[in-house]
């Protein structure tokens, strides 16, 4: 975990949450830019998990190792699944689905920051 990257991801995910809600309120399915943005958030999420995995491999030991590993794996599958699920039926609710996934990524990153304490 790198604090700056985590805070950036929290910000990016927060924007994705708001964007998803905005298109839902406007009664539109997510546009191309929004879907690309969600993919971008996913790329940052994957980078964060890879860096954290490298640090774990390098000998860093957080207090709750198993939980931390679970979070690092779980966090990367949320947006891809939500992306497919949101696109299979494109309505205003697709935006809310993307928002829910981004909110989960945001919450899990906050939790990871807390978990990332040396044992």
């Amino acid at each position, binding site marked *: 975990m790198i604090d700056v990257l985590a805070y950036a991801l929290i910000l990016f995910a927060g924007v994705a949450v708001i964007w998803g809600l905005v298109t839902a309120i406007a009664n539109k399915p997510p546009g191309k830019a929004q879907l690309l943005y969600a993919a971008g958030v996913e790329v940052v999420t994957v980078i964060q998990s890879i860096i954290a995995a490298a640090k774990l491999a390098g000998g860093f030991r957080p207090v709750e190792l198993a939980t931390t590993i679970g979070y690092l794996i779980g966090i990367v599958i*949320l947006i891809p699944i939500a992306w497919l*699920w949101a696109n299979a039926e494109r309505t205003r*609710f697709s935006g809310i689905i993307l928002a829910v*996934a981004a909110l989960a990524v945001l919450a899990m990153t906050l939790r990871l920051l807390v978990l990332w304490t040396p044992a």
Partner: protein
Amino acid sequence: MSDAQTQPETKPVLRRTNSGAGRVLVAVYGIFALAATARASVQMLTKFHQAPLAYLLSALAGLIYIVATITLARGTRASRRLALVAIIIELVGVISIGTLSVVDPEAFPRATVWSVYGIGYGFVPLVLPILGLAWLWHTRGS
């Protein structure tokens, strides 16, 4: 399915649970299926002896969320019934475990998604079964 035999095939009696707002419900259930199952797995693998009952209930919660996610996502007549059963168990679970964890915190040291009515997850575990039942009611047809 006795219903399927008595109802004419051509008449759509039920609305699909996996369409429109229902897709958001499925997404939220999916996240809780992942969260509860992963949490229970970690608990059972690393410290099962500390609180076997709480961790078994944790695993049960995960299983219920998985069943609810799949059945709501399928949206068939048969899967609706399973969804109804799963969501009722979920509601009973979150209320009873929530109450037990308040009355006897020693037995449930913040160990399950349902502890203190899901306080660790913004009380979503308490709201979710109510929304689930409301959605099944809303899509029940006439």
